[in-house]
């Protein structure tokens, strides 16, 4: 079989090079800044400073993804850096936290889902049509089962 059939890992794979990433991330942050200004009481300046910090964390993660020979997706590196710079015993973490507090986390996901809606390809719609209602029921049960199962086990050990 050909590898072309495997869908691109939209949320864990990195395709563009570092420079392109840097540019596209700026575009994304500008969009997020507009969203943040609409969604929260934060001023444009507060949102901008917070987003610049998040931008730098994301870029540091992208650089590490390329430098470190461990095969981790870039989002894993980005979240690790975000964690390390805000640990209570990291110097300056209080200052950073105050700045990023002005950026609403849920607003940051909004542009991503807009891109996701636009990215749906013809092939994906065909698969959904061809698989029909049975696969829809199964998919709902798969997600429900995974979610409730995880919550159940977590409940037991809390």
């Amino acid at each position, binding site marked *: 079989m050909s590898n072309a059939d495997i869908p691109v890992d939209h949320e864990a794979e990195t395709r*563009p090079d570092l420079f392109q990433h840097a540019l596209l991330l700026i575009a994304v942050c500008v969009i997020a800044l507009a969203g943040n200004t609409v969604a929260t009481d934060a001023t444009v300046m507060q949102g901008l400073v917070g987003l610049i910090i998040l931008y730098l964390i994301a870029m540091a993660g992208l650089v590490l993804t390329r430098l470190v020979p461990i095969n981790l997706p870039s989002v894993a590196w*980005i979240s690790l850096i975000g964690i390390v710079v805000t640990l209570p015993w990291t110097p300056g973490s209080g200052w950073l936290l105050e700045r990023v507090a002005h950026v609403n986390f849920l607003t940051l*996901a909004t542009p991503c889902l807009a891109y996701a809606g636009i990215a749906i390809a013809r092939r994906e719609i065909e698969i959904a049509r061809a698989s029909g209602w049975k696969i829809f029921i199964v998919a709902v049960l798969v997600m429900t089962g995974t979610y409730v199962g*995880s919550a159940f086990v977590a409940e037991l050990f809390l």
Partner: protein
Amino acid sequence: MENTKDILLDWRLHASVLVITIIAEAIGVIAVPIGIGSILLLPLLYAFVMGLAINPNVMRKAGAWLGQREVKAASPLIVIAIMPFIAKFGTIIGPSMEQIIAAGPALILQELGNLGTIVLAFPVAVLLLGMGREAIGACFSVAREPNIAIIADKYGLKSPEGAGVMGVYVIGTLFGTFIFAILASLLATAGIFSIEALAMACGIGSGSMMAACSGALAHAVPEMEGQILALAGASNVLTYATGLYLCIFVALPVTEKLYDLLGRKQPAAANTGE
């Protein structure tokens, strides 16, 4: 990948996303009360629907504004657009490290709860819906990209197992954020599970599923927002590390065994029954 100039020329794509984001955030969160709780409609859900509405593959008329070129260009942007979100999540996890370490055992073991899909979905698929080996691919996991890679590697994507995993993957891509937002808001208001447990369970899927899930939880219980996001984020990071191995060494073999048990009787029963 296209070259840098091409990316910048996709201004229609970025302009569309900018407008969609502003509209979605202006609408804000809407709570729809139903019997056992309430469903929270989040801006990210409107954004996805608006994205679909201007996708030329979904709405023919949208072809006048966006073409296949923009659709293709949007794909790598999903992961780039989630990066600031993931960075923000990291900054929520960091300050809560002590709480996360305290919840450590539950956090690690809840990964085993992902096998719940086999318990709930697999019998329905095989016994009620009469699915064949597609059920193995469809039900062994939550069908995100790493899980597809496992099935592609073992059976090939043209196999029945491959059709199963691709079907659930596509439905998850189309409806996953809605399903997780609805599940989380219903369970948060129903009071069966503790909020901490529900937060940890939010980490199982893709980044956008986690966003919808933890966002719905945080809006249902605003006073616990920090804790919810920290636990969901930590669980998601752990899933990167352990999820793949759980699938390869436990979930898939168990589903195979179950198919031998349930599936063998199934064809005979179906023949006599119909």
